[in-house]
Structure formats: structure tokens, C-alpha cells
């Protein structure tokens, strides 16, 4: 079984295979993600009921929550790709990993941005040192560390390996960071600000949110594939199949 998986990876995990396969999928994926996002936005902004306490400002939830979720999931995708790359030495995984870093950083930054924009009407300030917000900030630093390390090396192969090690070490730390920040927060400052729990949300608000979440997942996949394709072309620019593409 194990051997089979390994073989499968090596057979189909080649950059060239990935490039050609995704060429076929990409338009469909783009269509689905844009469709879902448009649908979710119209539904959420236009038809979902107004919130009793926050009025219309709550509607940023339809962007904020999916982006925040993906920012965190993105780190695990990156680290998983790094682990695959280190263990099975698969080039494609390397490229997925380094492509996931800037995308993840962008999502994290947007999560912080949308969060602070939302913070002004609800909390009266752009920034508080809330547990979740703080750990999001640390997540941004972790992403930036991987990006900076990737750029610092001249040899691509070395950069890939170094980033894979760093993102794995980071993975171990994320739950610890999250727990410690969470615990620190409750220690110092009893919960004065409570984020609305997802379970208490009204179903009419929840449905468009779910559509948006699925839409953003597709959008993330789209971005990751596009970025990986660019990385593949750069990495394999000397190989004959890429030269053939360009010609």
C-alpha cells in the first residue's frame, strides 16, 4: 500500500504532469469559484437579514470569516507540502509549498485588515490585543519568515529544503502559540469582547456564509494552482517541454 502510494506520487507528481492536467481543470475551477463568490456576495449583502445589534456592518463577515479560515488552513497546506517534499523528495511538493507562502500571507493580511475595519464600528478601535487577533499576527510573521527565507537563498533546491524545515517547525508551534495566547488573554483580561459564536448565528445568515466559505476554498485552490504553475515554469525553464510550450 505504502509502496503503491509512493510510486503513484512519483509517477504523477511530476511538474510536467501537473502543468498539463491543471491546464484542463483551471477554467472549470475558475468558473466555479467565481460563480460561488458572486452568488454568496449577492445573497449575503443583499438578501440576508440585518443583524439586531450590529446593523449592516456585520455583513463583512462574508469576507472576513472565509479569509480568516483559509489563512490558517493555508499554513497547514504549506507545511504538509513541505513534509511531503522532505520525506519523498518530490519536486512538485516543493513548488506547492513555496507558492502557498505568499498566498497565505496575503490571506492573513486581509484577515487582519477586514478584522480591524470591522473592529472600528463594533469595538470602537481598530486594534485590540485579543487572543485570536494576536495569534493571527504571529501567523503573519511565520508566513513572512518563510517568504524571506525562500528569497534569501540563491540555490532553489536549498531554498526549498530550508523553507520546508521552517514551515514544519512552525506547524508544531502553531497550536502552542494559539493555546498560549488564548490562555494568556483569559488570564489578564476577562472576556469583555465576545466574538459571535458560529453556532448562534441565524440560519439565514449562515447559508450565504457557507457558500462564501466554499467559494473561497475554490478561489484559494485556484490561486495556489496558478502560482505553482508559475513556479514550475521558472524552475523548469531549461527543460525541453517548457521550451516547447514557449515556442
Amino acid at each position: 500500500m505504502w509502496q503503491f502510494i509512493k510510486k503513484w506520487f512519483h509517477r504523477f507528481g511530476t511538474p510536467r504532469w501537473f502543468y498539463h492536467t491543471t491546464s484542463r481543470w483551471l477554467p472549470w475551477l475558475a468558473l466555479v469559484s467565481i460563480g460561488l463568490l458572486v452568488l454568496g456576495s449577492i445573497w449575503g449583502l443583499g438578501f440576508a437579514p440585518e443583524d439586531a445589534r450590529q446593523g449592516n456592518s456585520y455583513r463583512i463577515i462574508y469576507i472576513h470569516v472565509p479569509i480568516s479560515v483559509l489563512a490558517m488552513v493555508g499554513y497547514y497546506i504549506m507545511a504538509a507540502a513541505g513534509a511531503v517534499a522532505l520525506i519523498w523528495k518530490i519536486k512538485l511538493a516543493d513548488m506547492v509549498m513555496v507558492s502557498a507562502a505568499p498566498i497565505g500571507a496575503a490571506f492573513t493580511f486581509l484577515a487582519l485588515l477586514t478584522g480591524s475595519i470591522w473592529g472600528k464600528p463594533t469595538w470602537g478601535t481598530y486594534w485590540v490585543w485579543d487572543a485570536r487577533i494576536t495569534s493571527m499576527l504571529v501567523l503573519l510573521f511565520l508566513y513572512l519568515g518563510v517568504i524571506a527565507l525562500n528569497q534569501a537563498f540563491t540555490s532553489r533546491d536549498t531554498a526549498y529544503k530550508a523553507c520546508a524545515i521552517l514551515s514544519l517547525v512552525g506547524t508544531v508551534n502553531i497550536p502552542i502559540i494559539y493555546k498560549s495566547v488564548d490562555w494568556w488573554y483569559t488570564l489578564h483580561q476577562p472576556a469583555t469582547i465576545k466574538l459571535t459564536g458560529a453556532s448562534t448565528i441565524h440560519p439565514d445568515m449562515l447559508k450565504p456564509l457557507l457558500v462564501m466559505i466554499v467559494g473561497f476554498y475554490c478561489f484559494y485552490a485556484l490561486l495556489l494552482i496558478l502560482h505553482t504553475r508559475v513556479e514550475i515554469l521558472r524552475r523548469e525553464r531549461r527543460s525541453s517541454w517548457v521550451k516547447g510550450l514557449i515556442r
Partner: protein
Amino acid sequence: MVSSPLFELQDITFERDDQALFEGLSVNLCGGEILQVSGPNGCGKTTLLHILANLKSPSQGQILWRGETTRGNPSYLAEQAFIGHQPGVKLALSARENLSWYTQLYDSDTQLSIDQALDKVGLKTRKDLPCSTYSAGQLRRVALASLHLRDATLWLLDEPLTALDSEGINELEALFSAHLSDGGMIIFSSHQTLSLAQVGNLALADYSVSVQC
């Protein structure tokens, strides 16, 4: 010496970012043999020596030591001594301190004392001064002294003649022939030729031209 090869390179290829530096390199080396790696600047001599020393891994092919792969093989590490372009000498420490650190690192039961080794490489007078005050050649000599203190079989030396005066080169040749007649093996790179008789030659051509030995 019985002539079964101790050290075998089988079909070594090295690619960096998808460009081949050398391809299909195969060499067998027996005890008492010496090999000079030569070729123009940038042809991959240093890279090859790093691969042989286990600091880099080849893209293809394998390296065998006493019939076993050298990858993660501690007994290979114990029998091999590598000196690169940089002498590996701590400038803040004296020559004596540097060498005593090396003997600790390698846990070797040496034939010579540190003092004797330093005398051998002509550093009689400066043993206890910090190496930051050494001249280029004196630094090289400290590095070469570490060869006296290890019982390694295979020496991998990257341009060992750099910065040595003619006296120093003669001494190094004497050291080489002593090591070879003890059944040792030497692979070194250099742009100069030694006056030793039995030096084999492995000429690397300019990039991406395949070489077969």
C-alpha cells in the same frame, strides 16, 4: 596492498537547478593510489570533492566505500579527512588550541602529539599566538597539521598547495608519499602539478560535457 578498490564512484552525475555539471563519472581507487582532479576554473572540482566528502549528494549514481554506500555511513566519516578552500582554522584561537579541538572532535588516537605535528609543518615558533596574526600560508599549514593528527585512510584536499611556499610544497609531497606507502588514498584538486610519480589524473571538462574515466 591487495588491489580490490576501496573507493568506487559509480556513474556520478551532478545537476544544479537542472543543469548538469558533470555526468556519468566513474572511478575506482585502491589503497596507495593518488588522484588529482584537474580542469579549468568552475568545472566542478570543488563540487566533486564536496560530493565525495558527503557534504552534497549526487543527483545520480552512488559512491561506495569498502563496498558500502557512503550516505550516512559513520565508518566512512571516521576514515575520511576533508580540507576545503577555507582552512577551517579559528582565528581567535592559537594553532595549538585549534588542533586540540580537532583531536577532540575526531576522537582519534594519534601517533603524533600536537606539538610534533606543528613542528612538522614548520610552525615551531608561533604555536601559542592567535591564528588571526598568521599569514595566509601559515593558516594553511595549521590545517595541514590536522592531517598528521588523524588516522584517516582517504584524504580529500581542495587545492592544498594554495599559499604554500616551495618548501611547504616539498614537505606536503613527502607527507603524501608517506601516506600512500601506508596504504592511504588521496584525492586532491590543484592547478599545479606535483613531482610525485604515481599521480593519476581525473580531468573534468568544462560544464555539461560528459566525462568518462
